[in-house]
């Protein structure tokens, strides 16, 4: 993506890209998900049969499609950062628009999945597995929305020419958050849908 000529960094070498504050936030978010994943594992150890049986009823295809969708959107975000480092504001905004669009596809696929589950009468009180499945995916769903809002704010500023190759911390900040959202799904999907 980036040619060797691109060596511009807005951040000091050795520090993470983007605003330091977003990394505190990302750390806290990962901790929240981490505690949830840990609880899932702990609970599963006590109800292996129930978890395995309930897991078979999940829609793995839509989960896998959504994993691909999010990874693709992350790629777009990478392209957006690369573009702004070369000063291409318009391209940066377009790549971000693509990422937001793929975020939208994720939400639509997820809504179909939720609809099917709710139509089947599944709720938070059905059993422990579904409690985790629903709360984890809904919690993540809301993070996708938040990520899209952040990317949209960055996109609008990029479109106005608000970032330069020397100063584009905002783009890196949004990108970092979006990668976190993607990363959580990369763990969530196999953990809840696949591994048995």
């Amino acid at each position, binding site marked *: 993506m980036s040619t060797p000529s691109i060596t511009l960094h807005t951040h000091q070498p050795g520090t993470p890209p983007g*605003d330091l*504050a977003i990394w*505190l*936030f990302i750390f*806290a978010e990962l*901790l*929240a998900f981490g*505690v*949830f994943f840990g*609880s899932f594992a702990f609970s599963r150890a006590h109800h292996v049969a129930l978890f395995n049986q309930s897991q078979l009823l999940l829609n793995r295809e839509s989960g896998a499609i959504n994993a691909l969708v999010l990874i693709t959107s992350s790629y777009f975000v990478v392209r957006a950062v690369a573009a702004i480092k070369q000063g291409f504001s318009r391209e940066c905004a377009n790549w971000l628009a693509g990422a937001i669009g793929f975020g939208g596809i994720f939400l639509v696929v997820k809504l179909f999945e939720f609809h099917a589950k709710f139509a089947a009468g599944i709720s*938070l*009180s059905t059993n422990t597995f579904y*409690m*985790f499945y629903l*709360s984890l995916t809904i919690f993540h769903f809301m993070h996708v929305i938040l990520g899209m809002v952040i990317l949209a704010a960055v996109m609008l500023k990029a479109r106005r020419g608000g970032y330069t190759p020397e100063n584009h911390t905002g783009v890196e900040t949004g990108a970092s958050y979006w990668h976190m959202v993607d990363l959580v799904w990369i763990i969530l999907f196999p953990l809840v849908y696949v591994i048995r």
Partner: protein
Amino acid sequence: MQYKSQAVAKPYFIAAIGLFVGQILFGLIMGLQYVMGDFLFPAIPFNVARMVHTNLLIVWLLFGFMGAAYYIIPEETESELFSPKLAWLMFWIFLVAGALTIVGYLLVPYAGLAKMTFNDLWPTMGREFLEQPLPTKLGIVVVALAFLFNITLTILKGRKTSISLVLLMGLWGLAVFFLFSFYNPSNLVMDKYFWWWTVHLWVEGVWELILGSLLAFVLIKVTGVDREVIEKWLYMIIAMTLITGIIGTGHHYYWIGTPEYWQWFGSVFSALEPIPFFMMTVFAFNMVNRRRREHPNKAATLWALGTGVMAFLGAGVWGFLHTLAPVNFYTHGTQITAAHGHIAFYGAYVMVVLAIISYAMPVLRGRAANSEKSQVVEMWSFWLMTVAIVFITLFLTAAGILQVWLQRISATPLGFMAAQDQITLFYWLREISGVIFLIGLIVYITSFFVGGETKEAA
């Protein structure tokens, strides 16, 4: 003081401190009743003393918050208050209504008070912390609305800063969630469910926004660190507060008849509630270390740092101690809860109000800071009260652990009162610590009257 209308904060602060004294006196009465059951009976029964102790705490903190807002908002917005007269009027209404309520608690049996105040028309009384008669509750709403009207219009016409916006959000939240005190469904599960929307979403939600903004304001003033840096911290802290605190309400829903998933939601999210408090501690120390001026008010800086540390210990650590459902199964409603309640309220809310009073009062009295002598006395009171509350907490924690063991875990569990008899030693020690706290409070008040050379206000 930069703006004339800030002066209205002064009576609010004075009333807050006065009611604080009342709160502590009733705490001591009640503490003694733990070990001498018929002390002051039948004049002041335990349940009345408890109601006065907790209600006074809430009311004086509200006075503190309002005084703080009246002080901070003109400076932040760089404009005079919309209506200082309205603020004065509300001060007297709130003070008189509060005093009448307390007198009512003390002189009229509670059931009689309920009858006198039309509780049968709209039953809202009889629930912990929300015991106020209907007219008082309505009065609180009127005062809160007039206050918010005043503050909001001031912000709308002036400079908008993150601190004032976060403060405003917290204060509006405070008013909105109080409305749930009027909702009293006959289903006990639903009653408790929404009761927490006032109680929990106040202290572990919107009040934290107020706490964060007051702390940020004091830190900007005493450290001179860039507003930009402080605001970024403030945003991170309130984001974490809301992420963890809102769903963290679930830690009150374990055993009241709500669905089982609350045990997971409550445990996971409330386990993360210490994070924003930890961030506050790091924030306070970090800002003071990076200070760009030596503010003459050392006492205010001490209170601000103390808030960070004690809020983390009290709300964070002591909260975490019993927040997980499997732990809370044993500790629910024991002295562990009382221990957490004391140190959390002191560390988070009492200290932040005292921090803003410590910073603002000298300015309101026409100087940048009190004399060295006065500040030394004030710092003594800081240590006396803080160490006393730590000991109250440790003794109550010990009492709680013993209580859980004797009453709920041992092979031959004791009944509630029999278990209480076994832990009287700790109640005595707690009462002694309480006396030290009162001494600290007296020293604190004395510090306002210590003279000496002061610097003129900048």
